[in-house]
């Protein structure tokens, strides 16, 4: 942990990025405390207003306070993104371990199917899921898991192929351990490092994807305060009330940029020290 901090503090950009990310995590944790209003509370006397003393960031087309909605939106996205990445990690690791350790037919079939999914533009996958099952938090997680798992599986497979040839795997096989034990107790802990770094990078991508899904109407169903769907809704009123699209757009951009700059700075510093 200390190493990470000293690495990050070496780069001003990474430090600034970390500050942005920590800011949003703070906002998400303390959302109910710092939010001035209920994000769902409608005020028909104050519709489509600009920033004022009463509503610091203005209101949307239903008179809901934008500050409250942006604050609670941070909660939505910062819960959904890590959960989706964890699910993708679970599916991808299992597939990668089985393909890499079993080899032969299993490997061939699993990897061909994953290649097929990777040939698929992710956006198309989202649209088809939108078409087939509609919008909900679970579907967001499913969409991102399907889009992300093949990449993780590939990485885990290549690590497994390498680790499989080590002596301690042969030893475990001689002991008569079952394949699951070997995959998850012997191989996985030794492939852990690169997988975690990869997963960190994926959180930024997941936030990006969740925003896009929300914008396309596959996010949380209304009236939940989801940044992407706030933009999609405000898009209709952009000429009379630019604030309703500006704040959520700024919020998601800053979060994704923060996450990516941080990951990038970290990677650069790590490679420099190596």
């Amino acid at each position, binding site marked *: 942990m200390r190493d990470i901090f000293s690495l990050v503090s070496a780069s001003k950009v990474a430090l600034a990025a970390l500050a942005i990310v920590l800011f949003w995590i703070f906002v998400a944790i303390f959302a109910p405390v710092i939010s001035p209003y209920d994000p769902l509370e409608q005020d028909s006397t104050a519709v489509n207003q600009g920033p004022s003393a009463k509503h610091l960031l203005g209101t949307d087309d239903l008179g809901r306070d934008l500050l409250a909605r942006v604050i609670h939106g941070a909660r939505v996205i910062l819960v959904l993104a890590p959960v989706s990445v964890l699910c993708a990690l679970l599916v991808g690791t299992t597939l990668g371990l089985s393909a890499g350790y079993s080899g032969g037919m299993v490997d061939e079939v699993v990897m061909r199917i994953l290649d097929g999914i990777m040939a698929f533009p992710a956006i198309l996958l989202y649209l088809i899921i939108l078409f*087939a099952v509609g919008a909900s938090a679970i579907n967001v997680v499913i969409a991102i898991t399907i889009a992300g798992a093949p990449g993780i599986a590939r990485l885990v497979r290549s690590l497994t192929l390498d680790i499989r040839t080590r002596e301690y795997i042969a030893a475990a096989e001689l002991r008569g351990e079952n394949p699951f034990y070997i995959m998850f107790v012997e191989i996985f802990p030794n492939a852990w490092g690169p997988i975690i770094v990869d997963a960190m990078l994926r959180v930024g991508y997941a936030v990006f994807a969740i925003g896009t899904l929300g914008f396309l109407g596959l996010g949380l169903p209304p009236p939940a305060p989801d940044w992407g769907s706030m933009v999609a809704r405000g898009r209709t009123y952009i000429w009379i009330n630019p604030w309703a699209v500006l704040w959520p757009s700024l919020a998601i*951009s800053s979060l994704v940029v923060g996450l990516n700059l941080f990951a990038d700075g970290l990677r650069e510093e790590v490679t420099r020290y190596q």
Partner: protein
Amino acid sequence: MANFIVRRLLTMLLTMFIVSIFIFALAEIAPGNVARNILGAFATPEQEASFREQLGLNQPLHIRYINWLVGSDWRASRLIGMPLTRIKKPGTDFYQWWAVDEDGTLVRWKLEEEDLIALRRQTDGTVEESLDNDRWQTDEEGVSRAWGVDTHNHAVMWEKGSGETYWMRAKAAGWWVEKSGGPRTYIPLQKGMLRGDPGQSVQTGRPVADTLARRIQNSAILAGIAFAIVMPLALVLGLIAGLNEGKPTDRILSVAGLITTSTPEFATGIFLILILASWLKLVPGATVFGSERAIFENPKMLILPVLTLTLIELGYVLRITRASMVEVMREPYIRTAFIKGLPYSRIVFKHAIRNALMAPITVIMLHVNWLIGGIVVVEAIFGFPGLGKYLYESALYKDIFAIEAGAMVMVFFAVGTQLVADIVYTFLNPRIRYA
């Protein structure tokens, strides 16, 4: 080499086949929704069943898949005993299916009470009605049946006396009306995806292929212009950044590149609308396109979508070019050139650039999936009438045939570009070519 290309082509076909089954199976989860969505929440179960039957949605999955892939007309033609043909209704975008008589006249049928009426199309386009009860075939149980083409592009089987009630969308009423004299079985007529007819839009009734062709053209124009701006700009900026590794120029370009790439497309689009159209009033504010031809009538409307796409792609290409240039500049042969005393410009232009550009060019081709994602979102923000928006709207309105066809086209582009990239790469890289 030929072996390699053939193998890759086969893999591509296999991928597209798997994808088509995948899309079909996923769409299958939804058919209840399809009917619900078109008919509205107040449709009765009878109306829904009738609608599904007319669209052929009640048939088993494999039959529907075959109909969609290679068409249903050949099967229907065998049942009717006459060849079938598809003509365009004069003055419209809509197609009509007719059976062809021995003497070459086009004919369709309708059922009135107990009588089968043949509608023969005359050469001047008018239709002549005549009684055609010879087509009835009676089986051992005394039930009379007849196969024919109805006036709504189905091959149908009528059963004498049964006169099923069915529901159809009446143009005048704008709503669903109950009619009698309906057939027992429907086969929706289509030529099939492989023969260029993926069916008609459930929403508008227009043939998907025609709309799709225009939409692809619009998207190609948008992507083409953006590409022509992005590539030279990003490559030059990337080379500059790579040559100044670690200096302020590089830091600024790299960070700016990462920021534009990380910002979600919809947010970039919103920022550009707010700054350029709403605040500075530099470009037309009305970014919603009226018709499908609007981009030719008012090219100014292209500015914002193109700019958004440019910003998104710019950073990505820039960073890859930079990384590649940095790597090349560290190669021993570049060091040798420096030690040999060659002038800096000669080293850069003659020795470094050629090798540095190879990686970005192939990686960009491989990254077409990403560009597709950008195009879909940009088209959705600006209401641009392209392939992406067509797919997006089809998904929203559960337009089953439109989304299947659009998805296949998109996958074809994605997989096809990757194939081309692989082949180009093998040509560029002798180590793979001669391996």
